[in-house]
């Protein structure tokens, strides 16, 4: 699974810690998702999409 999390975060000048706080997850989680080591659950993917005000498929894609 590919994702644009790092780009979207950079566009907002958020650090990984900033994004982690907004999503109520650990910084390790954000880092693992960004680097493709971990694919988030559907509920977390929805939280990410809601935060960035984008549809899930605009953030995540099958790679």
């Amino acid at each position, binding site marked *: 699974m590919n994702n644009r999390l790092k780009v979207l975060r950079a566009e907002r000048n958020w650090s990984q810690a900033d994004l982690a706080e907004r999503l109520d997850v*650990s910084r390790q989680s954000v880092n693992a998702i960004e680097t493709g080591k971990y694919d*988030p659950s559907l509920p977390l993917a929805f939280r990410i999409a809601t935060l960035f005000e984008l549809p899930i498929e605009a953030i995540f894609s099958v790679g």
Partner: protein
Amino acid sequence: MACPASPAKRRYNRRTIKLSLIYAVLLIAAVWLFKHQQVTGPLAWIVAVLPALPIIGIFAAIGVYIVDENDEYLRMLLVRQTLYASGITLSIATVWGFLESFGMVGHVEAYHAAILWFASFGTGSIINRVTEGTWS
């Protein structure tokens, strides 16, 4: 960069520290009582089992931690860590059991399985660090 422990991890740490202290006290007391022949009969059975209870409590605390952890990635790492611990322990115990039954090695008390599990639990954390880049 080091990350602060999650609230669930902090609660788990507090529980295991308390249970470890209780274990130390009960173990010292049980060894003293048996050494000085202070217990016999049914009481001896109870005293002999007492040090095992906080160890069982630590296993339960790990289970509670898995349920408590809200962060799904950290929970996944913890589950992996416990699976490594269980897999390593059961594998070594199985091999040792066959070696023992064929008279190749000496007898080892069963509680060593718990010691081996905790050592393997630590190994699981190291494996997570190496493969995932973060401690669990």
